[in-house]
């Protein structure tokens, strides 16, 4: 990968995870994903126990 070729921009806009970029949407998305996994797993565990 090449580095240092792109145009300059303020650090705050960068995707460097070290800096405080706004990733709220990402956070909510992954947490919804996590909830989906939990619901699926516990739902099927309940089915397993009922059999």
């Amino acid at each position, binding site marked *: 990968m090449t580095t240092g070729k792109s145009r300059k921009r303020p650090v705050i806009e960068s995707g460097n*995870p*070290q800096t405080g*970029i706004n*990733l*709220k949407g*990402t*956070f909510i998305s*992954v*947490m919804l994903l*996590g909830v989906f*996994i*939990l619901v699926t*797993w516990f739902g099927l*565990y309940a089915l*397993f126990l*009922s*059999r």
Partner: protein
Amino acid sequence: MHLHKYEKIWLTFGLGSLALFLVIIGFAAFWKGTHPMSHIETIDPQNVEAHESFKPENLGLREVAEGKYAVNIVASAFNYNIGTDADGKPVKKIRVPKGSTVLFQITTKDVVHGFQVAGTNVNMMVEPGHVSRLETVMKNAGEFTVVCNEYCGIGHHQMFATVEVYE
């Protein structure tokens, strides 16, 4: 290598969930004994009759104690041998009362088979040279189809039986 703080929270949450699943299934397996079927006993696949449980006269359902049953089955392509009834006809249906404890013991004379009482947690592989053994409580009433769920040849889908759990 740095993680965004949200990624740290997400990974902690994810790892926590995985750990929780493992604790639940680990507790159930090691303390409650609900491991998946992993019976260790071996048998000569060419001479399964030498094993007490798989002698022709011992095949099929038997009540071993009050509310406790054992079923011995020999699988072969493409049939489950569950013994014969009073008229000498092959048994195709097992009937047990609801709430009874049933021990399934099964082996194969030829290739790999499956044994699933569909709709229950009785689901095991049957492999030549091994005895598959699982004890379970039949919690729910109904008619359950027993299917061979591991491909055993071109008649695979014709290999079945029925378990009826009556009230």
